[in-house]
Every structure is written in structure tokens, then in C-alpha cells.
């Protein structure tokens, strides 16, 4: 079997619960050693897809290959995958060591090696000294580490993680994100990570699949998703995005012009698949926008408006600028470098951007 073949291949996967279809037309591959995230709001089907990979649920249609092997009819206990559950599912009647060693009893390895592997796993997730602690004496973060060690100790080909950080508080979560990423690099196993937290997905992942309504909307690197969202839904889901609606004219060479009526016309790079003459948007990230006092030197294509709302965040200041002929105010985020970016409420301002800062995309 060639080692450059994807570790997971999903083709035409569909999942129905009764008359409800929760997954449609799932087709993608996950590469070896990748940190791959499934990102979406709750109910988008991401957890169901993960459970299909684990073998806890069976797909209604379609084919799943793991390491080139078809997985139809292979139960969860025979799959080369292990899972970290959202609730961690730490066995309450066993201590840390016994929890971690649980799966090894099902592997044909000698007892000494099993013991060594458990010790190694305990060290890996930094639980030294807690081996004989009971499950109910563990904190949330420690439970998470036990769950991780328990899944890794069996040396699965793919580690599945179902929102493993969602039960932790913010500070611990950020710490664990870094550890998780480092751990993945250390062990080199493919991680499939389910989350509804886009920041978490962007921080951790090599690639992210954005899911909504049981479908995959886009698969790309964090940078690709953020900079060049495939359509309006992805753009709205990842980060904050200002969208100027209009009509698209394809200019060729990956560029397009958006005719936004009273606001004017804007040229910008376009994502692939934006049809000539269709309705589309100029998408502008808040941090790509530049604010200036009205009446000064306005940049080409700049919009004029008034400051409707300001939020001081310390390192940055977030403004809402209402622009005539645009229904929703523009979100603008500026660095708090010196006093030059301070504007009073109601102050007239111009909003500008570099041409490469925007992108034209479809609905």
C-alpha cells in the first residue's frame, strides 16, 4: 500500500436518521499526519461524520476507506481509530492507569510492554504522579489528558477528537490547544478534530472542512478559508466579514468587478466559480479597512460614513461605521497605535482599503 495514499477516503457518504438526512454528499480525503478539523455550528452533522469514522454510526450510503481498507461492516472495536469523547467518557470505576490501559488489554502485546506503554502515555500527556488517582478525583483538564492518553496508547492510525476542549475554561483551553498541536507533531498521527469554535480550528488545523446543514461548504487551509472564502456562507461563518452586495462582471485572470449601485464599482480578486453577471459580494475583513477623518485625503474607492459605535479593546478599537446606501454598518477594526485612530461617535469618516484587501465572491 503506498504511503502517499490518503489515510481516510470518503465518497458519497450520506446519513439518514429515519426520514431526516443529516449528511449529504460527503466527498473528501484526509492525508496522513494531517491535523484536520470539521468546523460547523451545532447540528451541522460534524459529530455524526466523526462517529461514522469511528464506526459508532454506519453511513446510510457511500464508501469509507481507512488506510485503503473498506470500513463497511467493520465494527468500532476493529477499526484503527480511537476517539476522545466530548464528555471524555472516563470509566468511573477505574483509576488513571487502568483507564489508559483499557484498550491495550485488547491488543496482542505482552503485559510488560503494555505497562511500559501506559507509563509512556502518562508521561506524554504530563500526568506523572497521578497514575493511581481515581477518575472522580480528576479536574476537567486532567480528565481530558486521560482521555487523550487512553486513545493514543493503542497507537491508532487516526485519532478522532469530538470537541475535546469545549468543557474547559478559556485559559485552560488555550493552553491545551498549544499542547494538542505539539502532541500531534510528536506522535505524527492523523488527527480529525470536531469543533464549533472557529478560532480553535484556525489555530490548530492544517486543513478545515466547513460544514453546514449536513454538507461540506469548503475545505481549505486556515489561511485559504479566511482570505478566500468560497461563498457568502463561509465568509459569514469564519470571522467577521463586511459584504457589499452587487452584480459581478468577470474580468478574467482571477479578477472581477462588482457593480454596487450607489456605492460605486469595485475591482478585486475573485474566487473561482463566480459567474459573470450573477449577484455577488465584495467581501472585506474589518482589519483590512482603513479609517480616516472625512475631508482629508480619501483613498480611491473609499466610502464615507459616520461612526455609529465604538468598542475599545485595548490593543484594537472596533468601530461600526454607518454608510448611506448600505443597510448594515461596516465593521472596522484598527490597531491602537497612537491617537490617530480615535474617532468620536457621530464623527464623519472615510473607509478605505487596498485593492488586494477585498475579494469578490458569490452567494
Amino acid at each position, binding site marked *: 500500500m503506498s504511503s502517499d495514499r490518503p489515510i481516510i477516503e470518503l465518497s458519497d457518504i450520506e446519513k439518514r436518521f429515519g426520514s431526516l438526512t443529516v449528511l449529504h454528499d460527503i466527498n473528501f480525503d484526509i492525508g496522513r499526519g494531517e491535523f484536520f478539523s470539521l468546523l460547523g455550528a451545532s447540528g451541522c452533522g460534524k459529530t455524526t461524520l466523526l462517529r461514522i469514522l*469511528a*464506526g*459508532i454510526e454506519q453511513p446510510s450510503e457511500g464508501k469509507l476507506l481507512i488506510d485503503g481498507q473498506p470500513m463497511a461492516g467493520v*465494527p*468500532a*472495536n*476493529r*477499526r484503527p*481509530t*480511537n*476517539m476522545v*469523547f*466530548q*464528555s*471524555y*467518557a*472516563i*470509566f*468511573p*470505576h477505574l483509576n488513571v492507569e487502568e483507564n489508559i490501559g*483499557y*484498550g491495550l*488489554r*485488547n*491488543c496482542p502485546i505482552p503485559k510488560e510492554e503494555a505497562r511500559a506503554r501506559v507509563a509512556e502515555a502518562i508521561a506524554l500527556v504530563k500526568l506523572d504522579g497521578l497514575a493511581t488517582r481515581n477518575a*472522580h*478525583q480528576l*479536574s*476537567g483538564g486532567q*480528565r481530558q489528558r486521560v482521555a487523550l492518553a*487512553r*486513545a493514543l496508547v*493503542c497507537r491508532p492510525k487516526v485519532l478522532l477528537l469530538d470537541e475535546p476542549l469545549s*468543557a474547559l475554561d478559556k485559559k485552560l483551553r488555550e493552553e491545551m490547544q498549544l499542547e494538542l498541536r505539539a502532541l500531534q507533531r510528536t506522535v505524527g498521527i492523523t488527527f480529525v478534530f470536531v469543533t464549533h469554535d472557529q478560532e480553535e480550528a484556525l489555530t490548530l488545523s492544517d486543513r478545515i472542512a466547513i460544514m453546514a446543514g449536513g454538507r461540506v461548504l469548503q475545505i481549505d487551509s486556515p489561511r485559504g478559508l479566511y482570505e478566500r472564502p468560497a461563498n457568502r456562507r463561509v465568509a459569514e461563518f469564519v470571522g467577521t466579514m463586511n459584504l457589499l452586495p452587487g452584480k459581478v462582471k468577470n474580468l478574467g485572470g482571477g479578477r472581477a468587478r462588482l457593480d454596487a449601485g450607489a456605492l460605486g464599482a469595485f475591482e478585486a480578486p475573485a474566487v473561482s466559480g463566480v459567474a459573470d453577471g450573477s449577484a455577488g459580494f465584495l467581501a472585506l475583513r474589518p482589519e483590512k479597512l482603513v479609517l480616516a477623518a472625512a475631508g482629508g485625503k480619501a483613498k480611491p474607492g473609499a466610502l464615507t460614513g459616520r461612526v455609529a459605535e465604538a468598542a475599545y479593546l485595548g490593543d484594537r478599537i472596533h468601530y461600526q461605521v454607518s454608510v448611506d446606501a448600505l443597510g448594515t454598518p461596516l465593521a472596522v477594526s484598527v490597531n491602537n497605535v497612537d491617537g490617530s485612530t480615535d474617532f468620536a461617535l457621530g464623527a464623519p469618516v472615510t473607509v478605505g482599503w487596498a485593492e488586494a484587501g477585498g475579494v469578490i465572491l458569490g452567494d
Partner: protein
Amino acid sequence: MPKKFDMLWLYAIIFIMFLYGPVLLMPVFALNDGTFATFPLKGFTVKNFASMAANTSMILAFQTSVKIAVSVAVLSTVLAMPAALALTRYRLPGGGPIQSFMMLPLVIPSIVIGVALLVIILKIFGIQLSLWTVAAGHVLICIPFCMSVLMSRLEGFDPSLEEASSDLGCSAWQTFWRLTFPLALPGVISSLLMGFIISFDEFVIAFFLTGTENTLPVYLFSQLRFPNKLPGVLALGSLILVGSAVLVIAAEIIRKRGAPSSNPGDY
């Protein structure tokens, strides 16, 4: 001391007295040196308890009851376990109706169960009445209790525990023995105790279904008619009360103690 002593507290105390009063009179009179259960008390004696040792028919009935109660406890727990598992683990189609059906013996008057079993055993199958028929009747009424004890234990678990076990390579059978059974153990023990207590104390069904041998309650009932046997009955009754109370308390403590909750963040 209660923070606030009010009418409700007073009521609670009177209620407990009402609940326990009549029952507690039994040991009081059993220890009284008199042939009638009457005030004023005559004096302290243990002769009523001492004379029990010489009462062979009573000891025989006691042994019979213990034998039946042990078999009933084991049988009904073994039968209730798969049912409880099926109802808590898998959302069976029609699980609701099945569950209510299982609970029927709780609300059918036991005399109806008694005669119904009598009919099926004597008239349909033509089996001789014996201790086995009593045990069968008791298993029937114990199963709902055993099931509800086991189910309340099993329901508390995160379903992902079993998924995790399967994910870590365990077959369904291994998962049962390595995970489900150890977790359900406190429930199993209290189910056993409960089955034992119910069977040991049950009278109506035993009365209908027993053959020539008596269980202890049937024996007791037969003695109630004779006033001169009263002190002996009181002594026996007191011992049964104490024994049952000890078992109930043990069952409750084991049930409450059990492995702590499996919910994350629940320490």
C-alpha cells in the same frame, strides 16, 4: 437541631410516630412477661425469644423462606438485568409500552396474581404446588422492583462510556464484563437484597401457591388465629422486622454509595 421548628416539623415527627408506633409495639410486647399484648407491661423477659429455638416447625418454615428468597433474588436479578439493559441502552421501538407492561405487577392486586398463577399452574400445566411454584410467583412480582433498581443505576451513565469501550477494542461481551457490570454492581447488589426482602416477606402469593411446606409468613399467618401463640408470634415478628430493616438499610447504603456519577465535571 432544625433551624426552624414549625408546624411542618411537628407534623413530620407525629407522622414518623404514626408510621413506626404500631410496628414498634410488637417488640415491646414480645419482651413483656405476659400472655396478652396488653398494658400495663408486666416485666421484662426474653423467654419468648428463647422458646423459638425449640419450635421446629417454625425453624423449618424459616429455612424454607430463606431458600426461596435466595433463589428468587438471584433469578429475578438475572432476568431483570437484560431487560433493564435493553430498556436503558437501546431505544427499542415500543420501549415505553413494554416498560409500562413490565411494571404491571406493581399495580395488580397480589391476590389476582396469586389466583392467576394458581390457575395456570394447576389447571393448565397440571404441576403440583411446591416451593418452586411459590418461587416462580415471587420472581414475577420481584422483577419490576429489580428492574427499576437496575435501570435507575444504568440510566445515570454517560452513553459514550460504552462507545468508548467499543472504540478501544472491546466486543459487546467484553464491554459488558469490563464496564457495564462493574458499574452496575451496586445496583445488582441492591436488586438482590430487594428480591430477597420481597420474597421473604411476601404472604398472599405464597399462601396460594405453596404445597405442603410453609414459608415463614404463611406459618406466621396460621399462628395468628391462636391467642395462646401470641407471644411467640410477637417474638418472631420482631425478629423479622429487625432483619428486614437491617437488609433495607444495607440495600439503600450500597445503592447510594456505588461508584460516583460519571458526568464530567462532577467531582
